[in-house]
């Protein structure tokens, strides 16, 4: 918009506005008197055979209303931004009004959340009022990815399974919500080769009891021990500090079928949980944590 904000256009618009208002006043004054042939003149139209209308004058107060609008517009233009870059003597702005309303809303609704801020999460998990508020926060902020029931979908963790990729204690969950997380699984397609990836995939599937080819499982285990233990651990139970998932349970973030597991190993995965500290304050995150923990049964 900056190309329209040069001084010339400001002045031009201001001039047009002022001239229009003055012209309205002059026009009103000039039109308040007219020349007629005789009193009782009709408008000259006839409806429904014989219905005529007298050209009667309007009441005086009607014309005052016009002048009142002119006075109003002048006062308005002094008080509010309307003439070019003139900011108005009231200092009103759209952003200012928004900030005002936000702070008023926070004053009104903040205490509702603050009420629960000092209550222990374990207690909140049994408090229906806290859970109802937590559910609203969840549906508005989290359900887009984690689904309305919190069970997630492909690529978005299931929060109802108690399988915590980054750790399931209160403090860690709060950090996850506030700061967000970036989960990275590096690609191994180039270093392991097609057969190598296939063998590891068989081994990984066998860890959670899925059907697998025993020869490939044996071959895959060797590759796993050399390439995967750093993050997922020798027992395949993962490492919450790195966000490396547990491979021995039934929860598969991206899918458990062989082609999907091969794709995960070959190309790697990058997942992003966005940080919410800019939209949710501590009291809200506290309630949300209680709600999320209440989901895993």
């Amino acid at each position: 918009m900056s190309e329209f904000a040069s001084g010339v256009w400001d002045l031009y618009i201001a001039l047009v506005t002022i001239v229009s208002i003055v012209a309205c006043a002059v026009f009103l004054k000039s039109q308040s008197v007219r020349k007629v042939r005789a009193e009782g003149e009709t408008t000259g139209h006839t409806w429904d055979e014989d219905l005529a209308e007298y050209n009667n004058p309007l009441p005086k107060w009607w014309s005052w209303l016009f002048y009142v609008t002119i006075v109003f517009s002048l006062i308005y233009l002094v008080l509010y931004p309307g003439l070019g870059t003139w900011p108005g003597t009231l200092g009103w702005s759209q952003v200012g009004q928004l900030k005002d309303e936000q702070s008023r809303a926070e004053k009104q609704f903040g205490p509702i959340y603050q009420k629960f801020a000092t209550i222990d999460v374990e207690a909140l998990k049994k408090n229906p009022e806290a859970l109802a508020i937590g559910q609203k926060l969840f549906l508005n902020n989290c359900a887009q990815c984690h689904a309305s029931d919190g069970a997630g979908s492909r690529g978005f963790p299931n929060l109802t399974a108690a399988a915590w990729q980054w750790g399931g204690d209160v403090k860690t969950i709060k950090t996850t919500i506030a700061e967000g997380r970036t989960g990275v699984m590096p690609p191994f397609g180039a270093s392991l080769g097609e057969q190598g990836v296939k063998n590891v995939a068989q081994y990984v599937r066998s860890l959670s009891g899925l059907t697998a080819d025993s020869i490939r499982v044996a071959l895959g285990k060797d590759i796993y021990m050399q390439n995967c233990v750093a993050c997922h651990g020798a027992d395949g139970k993962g490492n919450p500090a790195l966000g490396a998932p547990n491979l021995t349970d039934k929860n598969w973030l991206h899918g458990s079928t062989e082609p999907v597991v091969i794709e995960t190993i070959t190309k790697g995965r990058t997942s992003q949980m966005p940080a919410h500290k800019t939209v949710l304050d501590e009291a809200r995150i506290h309630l949300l944590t209680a709600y999320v923990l209440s989901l895993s049964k």
Partner: protein
Amino acid sequence: MKLNDATALHEQSLYEVRRKIYPRAVHGAFAAWRWTLVWATQLVFYGGAWVTWNDRQAVLFDIAHRKFYLFGLVFWPQDIIYLTVLLIISALALFLFTAVAGRLWCGYACPQTVYTEIFIWIERAIEGDRNARMRLDKEGFSFTKLFLKTAKHAVWLALALWTGITFVGYFTPIRELVTSAPGAWETFWALFYGFATYGNAGWMREQVCKYMCPYARFQSAMFDKDTLIITYDRARGEPRGKGTGKGDCIDCSICVQVCPTGIDIRDGLQYECIGCAACIDGCDQVMEKIGRPKKLIRYSTTHAMEGRPTRIFRPRVLVYSAILALIAAATAASLYLRVPLKVDVIRDRAAIAREVEGGLIENVYRLQIMNTTEQARAFDINVTGLPGILVWGDNITGVPAAETRMVPVRVRVDAAVPAGSHPIEFTVRALGVAGVEVHESAVFIVR
């Protein structure tokens, strides 16, 4: 301004100063009707706000909580159609009354007429009738005048303020309004409507009808030669005046003096005439006194005045009546059959479909369940439309009185369901209450 030669041009202001009208008191059959309607409408208006129903105000338009209470009925924002229907019915009823009997509404029931009537009654009680008021306005300053004027405006303002408070009392419970300190907006609107009452009924009066009311301007389009209007029997009355060889009109000008809009009905039908029949009452009294038959001025139709028969049932009346009856019946039926439960189904969009244990396919929905009754209720949620379809987990949910609950619902189907989107139907039913059941269609996606 004197009449000029028809050809000479002269200057005339486009605006005129209002000439104050001093309507003379009038008694008679039609005045009695008007007062009956004043009492009826005002008892309903001033009293209605105080009626209690189900431990709450019977008629309350709770805008803050978006609920309209009308005795046993509770309207939610989703019921806005009933407001539309109410407005359509009101408009059609107005058209019908106008076609049959002219400006009945204006003359007897319009708030502008009713409040003007009340305000003039107060004015008359304090300042006296027409002649006394005209004399008082003409004379110079005196303490008697100051006292009378102050008293009149004080009573007017008190009544107007109470009207404003009562009006706001339909939006904020009136008992709260008068017992606790009212909020800023309540105060503003009470003063606003109070001022509007005082200004319109005390000062503006007939000018509202002449210059502001749109209905006054388009009602002529609904008139025809069979419409009941107030007419002066020219054949019987003219030539007016006293003495032999004159008509029945003795030119006493009572009909002009009682007119609240200050017109002379003997000039024929005019748009200023609000059909109040004050002139009929006034003229009838005079006719009685001079021993002539009444009804020199009367309700009649153009056809009747021309000596032709008046038809009540003409196409426009029949069409208005038919449409009105149809809409009214449909609305009554719809209100009677209304289910006090509303459900919205919102499908989870990001998580399209997921595979769960046993190879079943799961979709997630949010059901917004609105309990529009004033009792807490439990609802069970079921779903139909696909092989093996069922609601997974707890399918019973409680919703407090007149509240809304958002319920996440998991729906599972057989693995055999082919990929694509399939129509399904949710059924939400109130437990233990027959007939409270809502069906909502949705889509199940398999990929």
